């Protein structure tokens, strides 16, 4: 089943003259991981916004095209400072499931599970403002995972993590994939593309699809 389908996405930021994204098409099956890569400033984060509906709902500009999502989206933004807003890590993780109206017991279980999985158990009672850059990225990821999204977009979430933590997050993603989640990671580091089933290269004239293994071998 296709979890995400995008047709002819075109977007121009307000005040800009040329579009950042120009008629982009793609689709992703549930249970697949796609890695989106491309030069800095080519529009990867913008594509991520379109994919989960932030564009056109919350960012002004000229949008056309269609995005079909089968399931709940969750996005980890590139800048964790703008994502995290609760005064404690625990509250941050609770925010999503609270919005879904889950009972307290279930929320407690989710927080415990995700904190354990992501490795932020020791941070639960801390104020996120007092965390290191990498720790903030983990908390941002945790806050999205407790929402239990079906479609996950991660915007360079691995970038500020140390090697061991990167491996752990990649393991988590493989598990989520087995549970039928559709995952899109935005990533520059070639060594992290090994978990992807598809590699999408975003360029001026569109999205270039590359078979996963060959691409990482070539580079």
């Amino acid at each position, binding site marked *: 089943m296709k979890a995400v389908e995008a047709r002819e996405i075109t977007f121009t930021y307000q005040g800009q003259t040329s579009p950042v994204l120009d008629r982009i098409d793609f689709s992703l099956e549930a249970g697949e991981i796609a890695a989106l890569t491309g030069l800095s400033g080519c529009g990867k984060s913008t594509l991520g916004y379109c994919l989960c509906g932030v564009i056109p709902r919350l*960012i002004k500009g000229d949008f056309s095209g269609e995005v079909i999502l089968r399931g*709940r*989206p*969750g996005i980890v933004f590139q800048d964790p400072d*703008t994502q995290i807003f609760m*005064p404690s890590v625990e509250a941050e993780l609770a925010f999503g499931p*609270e919005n879904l*109206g889950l009972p307290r017991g279930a929320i407690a279980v989710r927080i415990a599970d995700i904190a354990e999985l992501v490795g932020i158990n020791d941070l639960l009672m801390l104020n996120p403002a007092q965390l290191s850059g990498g720790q903030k990225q983990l908390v941002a990821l945790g806050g999205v995972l407790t929402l239990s999204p079906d479609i996950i977009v991660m915007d360079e979430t691995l970038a500020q993590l140390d090697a061991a933590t990167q491996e752990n997050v990649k393991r988590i993603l493989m598990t989520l994939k087995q549970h039928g989640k559709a995952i899109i990671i935005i990533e520059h580091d070639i060594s992290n593309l090994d978990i992807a089933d598809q590699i999408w290269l975003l360029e001026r004239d569109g999205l270039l699809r590359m078979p996963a293994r060959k691409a990482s071998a070539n580079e």
Partner: protein
Amino acid sequence: MTFTSKLDPRTKLFLIACLSSSAVIMSHWTFLAVLFGISVLLLLLFGVNPWGMLKKCKLLLYMVLGIAILQSIFMPAGQAIITVGSLKLLSLGGLKMAGEFILRMLIIIASAGILSTSSSREIIQGLVQCKLPYEVALMASLGIRFLPVFAEEFRDTMIAIQLRGVDFKTLPFKQKIEVMGSLFQPVVAGAIIKSKALAMSIEMRGFRASPHRSSYLVLKCRIRDYVIMISCGILTALMMFCYFSI
């Protein structure tokens, strides 16, 4: 953690509601001085250092002081203390009024200090359990947080400027004004960008996705909370009675 800072946030909300509404209603400096004394005492009880607080809101205090001085100059009343020609520069009435204004502001600042011993999450939950809609409570708390965030942003900017090797203090006056003017737009635009990003984050985490919102944190009032609330209510009523019967 002192005994008092573990109080239910609703108790604290009630306390400061009593304090600040009394401060607004009563306009007699002896009553205000008593209220001020009480609020300092409360701050100490809650484990907040009043002196440290004063230092933190230095800028706000200067503003209050400035307004007070203007007030006493432009609304002279009663006996003149300093006169320039026929102009009453400082009068007893004006001075009294300025003093009352300062006391009032100090009481309100102290109330904020009492509230700051609870995290914003507890306060939101307190308001929600008082039947305020969650959205309103969240927006209010984010709005209140906006000021410190703004201050922090400004501090970051000052650090960034100095790291470029520029000494703001010794710049010629013209350039100082130029820099200050040029900072205005980025700081404001930056704050707007930040708040938009915040809205994005809130929305993408399922806010309003379901008609019913649950809460992981649940507050329970204990006996001491009720005792404090009731005695605070009685005290306030007594003070009001004294004030109006004078």
